[in-house]
């Protein structure tokens, strides 16, 4: 992270830095899993992305992962969540204690004791199914209830490692047993992670950290099972009704393979943390590189309110949180060309005043400019230029629409417009579940004359599905904003002026960033 200051620029964001530095992965932890019924999942709202990122196509999700998340309470711990803008940075011992208090209930009685236990539990395609299940909310619109049940139960079926097995992985990765590699190490995990588990610890130099430890042998098993493309296709034919199964498989395989190497996650998170350094409302926990390896990722702990707790916050607070999430997603897409593939509610910590900490960068999709350009063109031609013919051409260029489709441009625009409803016109608008359902119904209307001419190119399959996950989160918050105005701020082809107080603060941060960047080292 660049810490040099140019003369004349003020890093007023430094206190933020301190706070942003204090987040905790404890989010993954208990509250990350919320009670399905309570979350009222189907209320998801889809809107369409800026940039046509959501360009609709496809999409679907709506059964956001919320669906299966458990909300393990711990009321006392929740009270610690700081509201209304109090500073949430804490001393290492306090953060360590809070992480322990928020500990997830795990089935220690079922703990995996050996690598063979891991193989029995997650081998033979089950680890792969579990990963698909984790992403199921984003890929599953065609899931039969039986398959959906299977996927969610599979997640619940994975027990933690025994303390000894986890310690062995740490030692293999760091060359030291955990109690020597760390000043303090909690041998019991505080949370489950998809192919590992999270331990709380304090580093030798005194930082409170969350250490994600991967199950031994799991990466090899999953990588081997991902090789059975025929079976994957069979499984996903069940899960994905539309025409893009092969693209989806290829993309899922790549993303899951990436996720098996925690060094990638550390890199992604470092990239995000560096970019958002000093941001007024967006925080990304810092990575501790010397304690991060292929099967270990160590990041700073922080503390904050969980998604479920937002239900008790004022709508104003919820709107601010939603605005930050929205800005984070599209700033990341347009500035870093990266899209966090896991928008599920467990991956946020809320600190009030719109400040949000973003966690878990295991599933990040990086785009080339060439991949992004067509999406931008679609948004631009439809929403800014209002040029239907150009919009149609950009859909064709992006690969969403077959060039020879015997359809009128009006029909295409009419069909697609719903995906852009929240950003076509300026004005305040509330994300709702009903709107989301309408979008999904539209998209999956296979009787539509468009259905056979529309497909989703591989680079976008995850993006667009996850996009709906994002909007499901916004819908869950019933968030209101002038989304178009915010989009204009972020759209590189508009670069509109700040449209909200947060936009003003962000503009200041951007100016400082640029000044720093321009400063000779």
């Amino acid at each position, binding site marked *: 992270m660049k810490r040099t200051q140019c003369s004349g620029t003020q890093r007023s964001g430094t206190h933020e830095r301190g706070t942003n530095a204090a987040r905790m992965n404890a989010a993954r932890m208990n509250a990350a899993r919320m009670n399905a019924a309570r979350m009222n999942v189907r209320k998801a709202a889809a809107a369409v992305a800026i940039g046509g990122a959501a360009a609709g196509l496809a999409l679907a999700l709506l059964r956001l992962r919320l669906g299966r998340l458990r909300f393990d309470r711990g009321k006392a711990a929740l009270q610690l969540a700081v509201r209304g803008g109090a500073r949430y940075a804490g001393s290492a011992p306090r953060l360590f204690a809070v992480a322990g208090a928020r500990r997830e209930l795990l*089935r220690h*009685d*079922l*703990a995996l*004791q050996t690598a*063979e236990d891991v193989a*029995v539990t997650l*081998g*033979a*395609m*089950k680890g792969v*199914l579990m990963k698909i299940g984790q992403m199921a909310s984003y890929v599953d619109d065609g899931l039969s209830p*039986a*398959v959906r*049940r*299977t*996927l969610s*139960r*599979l997640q*619940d*079926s994975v027990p933690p490692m025994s303390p000894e097995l986890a310690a062995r992985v740490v030692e293999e990765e760091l060359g030291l047993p955990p109690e020597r590699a760390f000043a303090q190490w909690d041998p019991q995990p505080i949370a489950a992670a998809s192919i590992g588990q999270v331990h709380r610890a304090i580093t030798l130099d005194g930082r409170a950290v969350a250490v994600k430890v991967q199950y031994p042998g799991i990466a090899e098993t999953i990588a*081997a*099972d991902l090789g*059975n493309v*025929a*079976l994957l296709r*069979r*499984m996903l*034919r*069940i899960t994905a009704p539309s025409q893009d199964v092969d693209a989806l498989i290829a993309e899922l395989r790549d993303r899951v393979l990436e996720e098996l190497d925690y060094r990638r996650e550390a890199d992604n998170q470092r990239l995000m943390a560096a970019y958002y350094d000093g941001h007024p409302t967006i925080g990304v926990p810092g990575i501790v590189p010397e304690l991060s390896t292929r099967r270990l990722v160590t990041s700073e702990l922080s503390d904050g309110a969980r998604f479920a707790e937002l239900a008790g916050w004022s709508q104003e607070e919820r709107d601010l949180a939603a605005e930050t999430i929205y800005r984070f997603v599209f700033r990341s897409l347009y500035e870093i060309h990266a899209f966090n593939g896991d928008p599920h509610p467990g991956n946020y910590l809320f600190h009030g005043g719109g400040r949000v900490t973003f966690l878990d960068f295991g599933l990040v999709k990086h785009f080339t400019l060439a991949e992004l350009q067509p999406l931008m063109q679609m948004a631009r031609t439809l929403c800014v230029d209002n040029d239907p013919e150009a919009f149609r051409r950009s859909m064709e260029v992006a690969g969403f629409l077959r060039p020879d489709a015997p359809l009128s441009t009006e029909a295409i625009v009419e069909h697609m417009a719903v995906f852009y409803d929240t950003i076509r016109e300026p004005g305040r608008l509330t994300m709702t579940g009903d709107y989301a359902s309408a979008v999904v119904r539209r998209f999956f209307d296979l009787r539509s004359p468009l259905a056979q001419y529309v497909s989703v190119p591989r680079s976008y399959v995850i993006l667009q599905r996850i996009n709906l996950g994002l909007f499901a989160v916004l819908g869950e918050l019933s968030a209101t904003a002038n989304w178009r105005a915010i989009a204009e701020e972020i759209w590189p082809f508009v670069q509109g002026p700040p449209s909200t107080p947060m936009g003003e603060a962000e503009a200041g941060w951007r100016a400082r960033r640029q000044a720093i960047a321009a400063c000779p080292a």
Partner: protein
Amino acid sequence: MTADPYAAATGLIERSAAAFVSGVPDTNADDGFFGPASVTWRVSTGLASPVAGLRALLMQALHPLAMAGVDQHSDWRRDPVGRLAATSAYLATISFGERAAAQRAAARVRRIHEHVRGVDPVTGRQYAAGDPALLLWVHVALVESALAAGREFGLPLPARDADRYVAEMTVAAELVGVPAAMIPSSLAALERYIESVRPVLRCTPAASESMAYLLDPPGLDEDVAEIWQDVRDGAIAVLPAWAREMYGYSEPPALTAERRTEIRQALGVLDAVVLGEPGVLEARQRIAVRMRTARRA
């Protein structure tokens, strides 16, 4: 012999899963006849179980008198899935249930067997389901199939554990009325016994017909039907060559490492599908907790 058509295999997964759950007690007064430290529990919870089960049926059906009893007396044709589920429930109860539950289930089976008597239309021989010779064949086919399927698709058992499994399982045969002295209690004895029975074995029309049904049961969900093809390939691959010949199945290609992995993967998916059925996760966790505890002790 009647030629009633078979009913569709609708609900195979659901009813098999429910059968398994029914056999696993919520709380247990004793560890039953095997217990969490047994090889039997390890084998019974293995991924290869569906292959083992199908192979066992293929072997059992080759005994003309055993097959005739099933064909003429059970509601096998009218409700094949129900019949299979009843067997699964029985096996789960014997394996995981308390002693009293296992004994009750075995007594019920013995009572039913009393009425199963007749003449096999193919050999003209009289049969009785309670005949220890028939019961023993059915038992041995099951035990040997579990080992054969486990060798290829499950966790490989060390030779000593395979012997232990055969010895542990003798109690299952005793429960249905086979005198202990008749029951092979080592792998070698098991194999000698099978050799001794071979001259009696043959593929009768009833066997041919019912196994053709099992290998490709109509009425499965599409996704399950595709996975079932792998289960079938696995079962046929681990049949003895002479059994395949009796059925007239063509010699399958050698089981390569790749094919073995594919079948294991399909079994994993099937296992996950079963896991999605009500109560299965909890039942498995109850078993797993007891096994982990036993291992730690």
